[in-house]
């Protein structure tokens, strides 16, 4: 498939370990397997997620939506500027 110079979206994952209750929803349902549960414990004794492969994050925000603790969100990665801009409806 040809997408011009359009690049895949990239996201930056932000995790608040102290709010996390280790349910694993974000890890399990990330479509590109960006996250794993850490071996470390947070103060409450849960294993928070950690980023295993940051390059794989597509900024889909499903982890952000499914997390019952509001403990993870994703922001778009700053672009390196040479991709075509997507235009919506213009």
């Amino acid at each position, binding site marked *: 498939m040809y997408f011009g110079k359009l690049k895949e979206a990239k996201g*930056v994952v932000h995790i608040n370990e102290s709010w996390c209750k280790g349910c694993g*929803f974000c890890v399990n*349902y990330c479509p590109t397997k960006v996250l794993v549960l850490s071996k470390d414990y947070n103060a409450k004794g849960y294993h928070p997620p950690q980023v295993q492969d940051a390059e794989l994050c597509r900024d889909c925000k499903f982890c952000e939506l499914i997390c019952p603790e*509001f403990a993870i969100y994703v922001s778009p990665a700053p672009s390196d500027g040479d991709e075509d801009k997507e235009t919506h409806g213009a």
Partner: protein
Amino acid sequence: MNVNANANFAQDNPMSQFLRMERMPHIWCPGCGIGTVVTAFAEAVKKSGLDLDKIAIVSGIGCTGRTAGYVKLDSFHSTHGRAIPLATGLKLANPEMKVVVFSGDGDLTSIGGNHFIHAARRNMDITVVCVNNFTYGMTGGQMTPTTPHTANASTTPYGNYEYPFSLPFLADACGATYIARWTSLHARQISGSIKEALNHKGFSFVEVIAPCTTLYQRRNRLGDGLDALEYYQNDAEIAHGLDTRQVDIDYQGKIKVGKFVEKQKPTYLDNVNQHYAQVIGDEYELYGKTTPEKEAEAKAKAESAAKGAV
């Protein structure tokens, strides 16, 4: 590296616009589904473009009912079962408000069951979001009207021998004009349906099947939150428009999800106005009009009268 240990996590989190971040972490158990539904709700409010000052959230009592205390919108944590009457009062006193009830299956359909059926019957213009975890979570896992037949609860330790309510069918039979159901795994779809429900005129109902890990899951030896989501992933079937007589849920059986009903019908307030305008005539002052609406109407009336005179 694309990872941030963000010191301003609470403020920078996109949810901070909708939630009282200073109250986090919340009280819900690990793997409980309520938090996901709250996020989906906030997402829906964001996408709806509604004025945040014109939305009010009303909850009853229960784990789900705690939502009222976490949202950064006008909210009322009412008494057990009475979220819908409070919401009805709010709506009638201030028809410009979007009034949303956010509560649990026990609260809305057991002690609050009567209010639920009558608000649906009247096509009261409110949105009801029900987190259905098949149990009274907050008080220790008792059976509710939605607990599936044979499921274990603290009040049915040998399994539930009653017939459960199928909430979409109940709402439909009573006259609700928008009805959707999802599971808490369908986070995006919940958000889409709540957005539609918010924009719907009339009684809109969104049911979300969600895990109560500590009581329902544990008592029934069904594992944790992830096991619940896996069950939803395997056994939820999207069936938009399906006849609500066919959407009941057997214990660990198939869960039909989707938008089952969407239709237009005059709301309670429409009917009040139409009826009194008819029986009282011009003397009757329409109820629930905003001042600009009243002025615009008077102007239109004067203009058409002037036209008629020519």
